[in-house]
Structures are given as C-alpha cells and as structure tokens.
C-alpha cells in the first residue's frame, strides 16, 4: 500500500477506533490522545513494515495500550481506572452511530466555533495538530492549546458519548453542519490572506459531510449541505487565474467546472427537494445547482434564482441573503430595482460598511450607468475587505472604470 493510501485509510479509521475506545472506556479526552498516538505510530510503521491484516484491530489494541499506560502513569486517575475495569466491556463492533456521536461531542455547544472546527478535524477527520495548525495558519503550539482546552471543556460539561434525542439532536446536528460549513468555507476562501484555495480543507469538509450523509441519507439539510459543497467546489478550478486573481461567476470558463461534482450535487438537490423539509442549506444548494445548469452566464435562470432567494429570506432572514437577492433582482428587473432593495439594508448595523454591500452596490451602479459612483464604491469595498485576492479584484474593477471616465 502506498503512503497516501495508508494516510487515507488511517483517516477513515480514526473516528471508528476512537468510537470503540470511548464506548469502552468513557473519558473522551484521554481516548482522543491515545488514538492520535496510535495513528502516528501506524503512519510511521505501516509504510515500512506493511499494513497489518486487521488494521482497525491493530489501532484499537495500540490505542488501548497507550490509554492504559497513560492512566497508570497518572496517579490521580487510579480510582477511575479501577472503576472502568469493573464495568463490563461492551462489544468491539463499531456502532454505525459512532461517527455521529463523535461529531456531536466535538461540536459541543460549550465550545467556540474555532475549537469545534479544530477538534472535529482532529478527532473525526484524523488530521494531526500540525496539519490543522498549518491549515488555519497558526503555530502548532497555539492549535495544541486550543484542542486541549476544548477537550477540558467537554469533560467539564460532563458530556456523554451518545447521540442525543429529540429537539437536542436537531440542535446539535445544526451545529455539526455549521462546523462542516465553516471548515469548507475556510478552505474555499481563506477569511484573510492571499491564499485563495486551501483546497485540502474544502475536500476534508466534503469527506466529513459524506460521512454524515451516509448516516442520515434522508435528512434534507445534510443532503443540501453536501450538495452545496460539491456544487461550489466544482467551480474551484475556474474561479481564479494562475496568478491568483479572482474571476467572478459570470466571467468564469464554465468548461473548467467539474461536471462529475455538479452531477452528484444536482442529483442530491433534486432528491432532497422531493422531501418534506426545505432548509437553508438545501435552498442554497438549489441556487448553486441553478447556476451550474446554465451553459453560459447569459442563460442563467435568474427568475428561479430570485425565487429561491425569496424563500430563503423568508425561512432564514439574513441581510446577506437580501444582498444576494438584490443581485438576482437586478438581473430580472434591472439594476435600479436591485439598488432599491439594497437601500433597505442601509439601516442594518450588521451590514454598515461591509465590503459585500459596498461591492454589490458598486456592481449595480456600474450596470445602471453611474461609473463615478461605481468606482467610489469599488474603492471603498477594496478598503473594507480582509482578503487580498478580493481587494485586488475590487481595485482592478475601480481602475477599469477610471479609464472610461471622462477626463
């Protein structure tokens, strides 16, 4: 087996092995460390010595040994060890709910979003602390402290390793999906910096969303989130020049969109739309599917895009949704209608000075034949963004207008 194949196998096995250990011993914190050590040992040994016949069994055995060593070496934990030993050992067959239970634990509401994402990537995604630190552009020591603090918080909250029931389950699933969405977004557009594609995080988010979808295939929002990721990721080759300059949707070479991902995402959207519930992720995926369906930007079904944003605005009101609806409205009713809708956002303090509001207004002013106003707004938007790629794009739009302005 090649080293990348071994790495893939290890990451697939991480949540399964951790699930077995936590169900057997409780104490998520210690089990998580032990599994991480076992994974590191395998990553060193397997490429040299070959993959054992039962890789999962090997990892469970090594991780259990590490956990017991850890418990023995920690005198303060002696009592807990004897309590654990007295319990009947549950079977070693991984329950299908293990991945979900782990995700629910990592996305515990007592944690900040930054901690939830880090812990999810480590405990469920099987990434090392160093890899997570690199992906989020922080030193390894910073990330290690964050993960360790997160595990202490979970212990302090006395959380159990079980999938909660009823309304709590729905709430927690919403947090899980949000965390996966954040991981994807971090990979898709770095919140700051010039590195536009941190594609590994996007791919990792898709892999985790697939795990959740495999557990909950009938959940419309799970399907919607996975579809949204696939349809968005399908465009990633087309959305920037080799130099890293952003290419807006309407100017992208659609021949470079990944048709296989689009096919899969669209299929998920169609199946889920037939279901009973219409949630925000599914609606956003339906909008992405509508864009993907257009052979050219001019053929975009903007009426459908607008209608979908209108429903989204009703079920999940948010100024960013209104902003996007204004773009669709400008395409169907003209730029002045779009600008009129934007003015409704001026009083919203969440949007005051936001670069997206400034850049969309610039775009619509340009379409409405007000190059001076458009240029001013592009320049203000460029000052307001924290993304260098976006700033460069907005500055280029502004200077393109300057050359057209009368002297």
């Amino acid at each position, binding site marked *: 087996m090649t080293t990348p194949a071994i790495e893939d196998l290890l990451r697939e096995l991480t949540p399964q092995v951790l699930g077995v250990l936590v169900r057997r011993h409780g104490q998520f914190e210690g089990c998580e460390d032990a599994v991480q050590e076992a994974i590191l040992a395998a990553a060193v040994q397997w490429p040299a010595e070959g993959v054992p016949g039962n890789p999962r069994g090997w990892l469970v055995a090594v991780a259990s040994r590490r956990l017991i060593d850890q418990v023995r070496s920690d005198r303060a934990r002696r009592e807990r060890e004897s309590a654990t030993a007295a319990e009947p050992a549950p079977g070693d067959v991984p329950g299908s709910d293990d991945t979900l239970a782990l995700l629910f634990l990592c996305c515990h509401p007592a944690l900040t979003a930054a901690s939830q994402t880090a812990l999810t990537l480590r405990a469920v995604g099987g990434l090392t602390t160093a890899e997570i630190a690199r992906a989020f552009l922080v*030193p390894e020591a910073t990330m290690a402290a964050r993960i360790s603090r997160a595990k202490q918080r979970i212990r302090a909250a006395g959380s159990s390793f079980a999938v909660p029931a009823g309304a709590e389950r729905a709430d927690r699933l919403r947090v899980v999906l949000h965390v996966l969405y954040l991981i994807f977004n971090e990979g898709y557009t770095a919140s700051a910096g010039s590195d536009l594609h941190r594609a590994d995080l996007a791919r990792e988010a898709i892999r985790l969303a697939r795990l959740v979808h495999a557990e909950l295939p009938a959940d419309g929002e799970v399907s919607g989130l996975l579809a949204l990721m696939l349809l968005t990721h399908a465009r990633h080759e087309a959305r920037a020049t080799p130099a890293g300059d952003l290419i807006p949707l309407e100017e992208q070479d659609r021949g470079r969109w990944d048709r296989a991902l689009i096919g899969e995402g669209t299929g998920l959207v169609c199946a889920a739309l037939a279901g009973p519930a219409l949630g925000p992720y599914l609606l956003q995926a339906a909008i992405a599917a509508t864009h993907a369906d257009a052979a050219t930007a001019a053929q975009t079904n903007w009426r459908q895009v607008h209608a979908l944003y209108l429903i989204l605005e009703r079920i999940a009101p948010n100024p960013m949704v209104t902003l996007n609806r204004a773009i669709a409205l400008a395409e169907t009713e003209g730029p002045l209608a779009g600008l009129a809708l934007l003015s409704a956002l001026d009083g919203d303090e969440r949007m005051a000075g936001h670069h997206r509001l400034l850049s969309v207004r610039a775009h619509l002013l340009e379409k409405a034949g007000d190059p001076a106003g458009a240029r001013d707004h592009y320049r203000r938007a460029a000052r307001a963004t924290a993304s260098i790629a976006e700033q460069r794009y907005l500055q280029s739009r502004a200077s393109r207008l300057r050359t057209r302005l009368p002297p």
Partner: protein
Amino acid sequence: MQFLISMHINPAVLDALTDEEKAAIGAGHGQFIQALKESGELITTQALVDPSQAAVVRVRNGQPAVTDGPFLEAKEYLGGFYLIDCEDKDRAIELAAQVPDAAIEGLGVEVRQVMFADGLLEA
C-alpha cells in the same frame, strides 16, 4: 481570524507612573500572556526598545540615508504588539480591553485584522 493588538505608548506617561504601577503593568501582561496561551489564541507577542533607539532608513537615488530616532515626531510610539488568532473582531476587542495599557490614562491599544501572513508559520 488573526488580529494585531498594537500598544501605543507614551514615554512621558509611562515615566510618570509609580514603581508599583509599572510593576502592575508587567504582572498584568504576564497574566494576559498566560491566559492567551492556555486558550490557544496567542500567536506571538513582542515588545520594542525605546523609540530613541530607532533608526529611520530612506533610500534616495539608490543610496540609503539613515537618521537616528523615530519616523514620526509624536507623543505616542509603537511599544509592542500581540498577534492573536481568535473567533471574531468582538473577541479581539474583548481581549484588547484586558491589555493593562488600555486602562492607563493617556494610553490606548489598537486592534486591526491581519490580511496577509508568511514566514512565521511555515511548517
């Protein structure tokens, strides 16, 4: 999200403090650093020497011209900074308010989001 919390010091204000007040600032920074390390939010922190030790470099016609002293003749100077990685701007402001300097009359700290980073984090 990464933010730089920069401390703008005024040597005249600092000189006027009592020894106890100066010691309290030092202890406050120590506690702040410890808390940031434990929460996994600290990337790095550095303090700079007195602005009188600064050199300003200007290259004109390819020739460097070096003068002693700070770039701007001002009352306040950059004294040091904290580079942090935290949840959002609200949290960065909450942390900035814990920097001891922020509570001293005549001093203040500034919070700005980082837009580009390289070097320090290469694995």
